[in-house]
């Protein structure tokens, strides 16, 4: 196939694909950042996204109002996260086990509901999706406009969420307390910070963000639900969070990198990259994550109390 790397449309396609692939990762990754910064490991992101994608589609299907669907996705995400929070914070059980249980449950639950409601396996009928946003002025700029001027709202929401998350975590007293609770909950409690309240808040927030990520799949990039449509994105988001050293901007950069690897793979035919097996491109993000964890590229140190249930004495 003839390729022309001077053709600007290839670059536009790359940027657009990168943003599209990165968006659900960014939203879920931010969820991971909040949860783990407060000391709760949330590997349930994958399952929360899947259930939220389904609930969003369902509400949009019945109400024909896609934004109501988004709201439902966020709410259901927070609700599932609340379950995780109670199990992990109140009952102090193993956070990885609880997360895994939610992930396994979500696959069965959405598959079952799909068949129950639509009497159809595999995928839902098309539902109304949220309309794209166009950014005035920027849209008019040549090339740039085509790259970032018109996208599904989730792309912009994810970027705004990064900025807000970074501000909250590093510039507000709530953020200082969240980080304190994730590093040394006992120290936080001795100065009057409510460790449990902070953890509940952060886990709920992580569920809401993962819910938004789920909605971006079924109501943003597609307009239907497909069985297991998250396809491991919740785990990739966690990898991005680790690779991004538990910071919003770091997570954003990691997600863009992972999204770029995806985009390369999608466009490998057009780009003439057929000499690299696409599987290698798909593997790249995980190899990078393992390298980051092993300290080969900039050591990634998790919050000290992440994964450890907090026990108040007496």
């Amino acid at each position, binding site marked *: 196939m003839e390729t022309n790397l001077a053709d600007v449309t290839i670059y536009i396609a790359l940027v657009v694909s990168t943003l599209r692939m990165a968006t659900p990762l960014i939203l879920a990754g931010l969820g991971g950042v909040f949860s783990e910064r407060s000391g709760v490991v949330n590997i349930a992101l994958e399952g929360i996204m899947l259930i939220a994608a389904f609930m969003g589609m369902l509400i949009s299907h019945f109400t024909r109002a896609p934004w109501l669907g988004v709201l439902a996705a966020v709410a259901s995400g927070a609700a599932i996260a609340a379950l995780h929070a109670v199990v992990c914070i109140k009952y102090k059980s193993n956070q990885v086990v609880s997360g895994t249980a939610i992930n396994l449950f979500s696959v069965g639950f959405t598959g079952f509901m799909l068949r129950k409601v639509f009497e159809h396996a595999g995928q839902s009928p098309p539902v109304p999706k949220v309309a794209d946003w166009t950014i005035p002025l920027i849209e008019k700029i040549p090339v740039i406009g085509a790259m970032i001027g018109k996208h599904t709202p989730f792309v912009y929401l994810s970027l705004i969420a990064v900025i807000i998350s970074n501000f909250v975590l590093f510039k*507000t007293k709530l953020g200082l307390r969240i980080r304190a609770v994730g590093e040394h909950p006992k120290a936080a409690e001795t100065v*009057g910070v409510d460790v449990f309240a902070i953890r509940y808040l952060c886990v709920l927030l992580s569920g809401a963000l993962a819910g938004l990520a789920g909605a971006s799949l079924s109501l943003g990039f597609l307009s239907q639900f497909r069985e297991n449509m998250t396809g491991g994105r919740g785990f990739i988001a966690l990898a991005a969070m680790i690779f991004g050293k538990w910071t919003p901007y770091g997570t954003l950069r990691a997600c863009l990198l992972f999204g770029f690897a995806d985009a390369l793979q999608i466009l490998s035919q057009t780009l003439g990259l057929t000499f690299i097996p696409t599987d290698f491109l798909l593997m790249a993000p995980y190899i990078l994550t393992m390298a980051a964890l092993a300290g080969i590229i900039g050591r990634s140190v998790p919050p000290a109390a992440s994964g450890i249930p907090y026990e108040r004495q*007496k």
Partner: protein
Amino acid sequence: MPGAVLHMQRCLASVERGFLTLKESIGDPVVEMRDITVKFPGVIANDNVSVDVYSGEILALLGENGAGKTTLMNVLYGLYRPDAGRIRIHGEQVQINTPNDAIRLGIGMVHQHFMLIPPFTVAENIVLGVEPVNAAGKLDMDKAIRDVEELSNQYGLVVDPRANIDDISVGMQQRVEILKALYRGAEVLILDEPTAVLTPQEVDELAAIMRSLVHQGKSIIFITHKLREVIAISDRVAVLRRGKCVGTGETKNTTAEELAQMMVGREVVLSLEKEPAKPGDTVLRVENLHARSGRNLPALRGVFFDVKAGEIVGIAGIEGNGQSELVETLTGLRKSTSGHIYVNGIDVAHNQPRALIEQGVAHIPEDRQNRGLILDFTVAENFILRNYYKSPFARGINLDYRKVQAHARDLISEFDVRTPHENIPVRSLSGGNQQKVVVARELSSEPKLLIASQPTRGLDVGAIEFVHKRLLAQRDQGKAILLVSLELDEIMSLSDRILVIYEGQIVGEMAASEATEGELGLLMAGGHGKRGLDTERSERSGQYGQQIQEPLRTHVKPIS
């Protein structure tokens, strides 16, 4: 204990009357704790304890580990809710349910294990929970830093508000903790075992800080089990034993011996009786030993020394000067980068731990819970960790549990380990009994060389006495003993020879009989030796250092 009653007012029976005379002299109490009872499953941690604190005084809360001192203070700080009792602050009855309540009432606590968040800055740690924000709701770190600087000037507690907790010394971290309490407007400061982690010089500084704080109208409750500090620092003392308050009174009217007796409930010998050592052949010789720390920094930088049969050689030093790495290298847990370790003339520098055990090296590690024991294994299993693979315990691929248990029962009775039986997890034993398990295991192997690292850390007076006696008995049987300890008292009372380690080198050696605390303290701070004085530390040793420099030259022969 007639002696004790003479000077000390009993605080159990007639509390109100007992304090009447004191009230006249010092004014009204700031804090009155009355009949506090705290029950934990199976234990009464505080049993009707009553304690008062007056404005502008330092009250020492004295007692052994487990006497209930920290529990009582956790009640005052709102971390525990008492099962019974009342607290009055400035005469008003109050309910303290959370640390927030305590903070609001002007009570601050510096915990024994510092409650600081390592990756945060000093200022962030100080303001956490009461953060200044600007009009937009944004965290105002500039104001926080200014506030901290102001406070640190006001009380003479020098800190760098922008430094990370990770990067500052333990003494500095303690100042941050005190500032944290002051920032919250604390009038009453609770210091839980504040001297445990400090060098003698830092203890002097802390005492000066405490003096200056009470001078400015603060009150201090100071938890300790060290008698000397009670005498040196406090105005009044309350003694707890097994959850009960057994006496309270003015420090100047009592003596260390009397306090010790009240604390333990029987006569204690504060000084160890020991015969002069009769050193024999050299058992351990260390030559030019180098090793790196866990963070891959040079930790041992050319260590030379030897230990002979029948003597105890003590290594004194401030934590983090290479002691842990030295012990780990000698026991095969850490690889040396160069140098030699001879045990009975054989170079064992590259031996695995098991090979060293076979050479007759025994090791009481500094961290009994992580290194000395497997907490979830039974007492009996912990006794055979060194030699489970050998007869009589191993029989082919099986363990002979009957032999293991019989062995355990022997050791339990010989070493007086207080445990219901040998088949319970060692985790459920008290700290002192856990240490007895370690000591019993190591000594029962009939070692030629015993390396004891902080053998009495966290133990109470009774258990310390036990361990010390056992070590001396081993010495008298002709074993070579290397004792590494951060407790200068322990080094001075047990050792026959004392070495001082500083920044990975032995910087001084002296006979224990000639050593004084001042000399050792100065050497430990790097004040003498071939590396010379470093400015920050020499400033801190201050006057004290000046006074003792003269005799130091005559006594200490630096090794090079």
